[in-house]
């Protein structure tokens, strides 16, 4: 009697875990250089993972990358100069943004 629901739960969790690796996205963070409304693209100067007191979001690497933001979930619209964090999928050579977080403008730490 008791085994049945437990058994099904474990099976379900196992299946979910099996499919788990399918959901993985890359994340990058950087300074927004430009937003192209027409082509629906966003270019950032990527930051590294070296967080310091004066550079809490990391240091600029000088490496620019462009993202397709046509289907992305966007919070506070990013403008030039904002620090953004993007989760994205790589399809061929294109980076398709899934979610865009405006790190500097929404500053969660102050809420």
């Amino acid at each position, binding site marked *: 009697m008791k085994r049945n629901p437990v058994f099904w739960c474990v099976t379900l969790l196992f299946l979910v875990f099996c499919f788990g690796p399918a959901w993985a996205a890359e994340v990058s963070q950087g300074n927004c250089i430009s937003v192209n409304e027409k082509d629906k693209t966003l270019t950032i100067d990527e930051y590294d993972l070296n967080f310091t007191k004066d550079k809490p979001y990391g240091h600029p690497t000088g490496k620019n990358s462009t993202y397709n933001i046509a289907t992305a979930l966007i919070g506070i619209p990013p403008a030039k100069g904002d620090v953004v964090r993007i989760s994205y999928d790589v399809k061929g050579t294109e980076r398709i943004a899934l979610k*865009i977080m405006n790190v500097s403008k929404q500053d969660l730490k102050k809420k």
Partner: protein
Amino acid sequence: MRALVCMILALCTVISALVPAAVWAAGEKAAMLVVVADTRRVTSDIGKYFADLYNTNMWLFAVWAVVLTAGYGVFLGFSMDIIMARTGLDLKSRKIVEH
């Protein structure tokens, strides 16, 4: 009891007065906040799995959160029962006061 009900009503009034006042004071900006988990900083595999899920499939993440929280709650409850039974204290006569 009467005093309690009065206080609750007063609290509700305060809330209904405070919320709109505070909101109108802020006014203008109304953009949804989107959060992206920084998976670059997560080192453990399990942590990475959940942070990835947070970024890509919120529904599954929500199901996981509920199932794991409930499961862990039940696990803790039963394991605590076992541990407390071993202390040798008489726990049958205690009042059940828990919520």
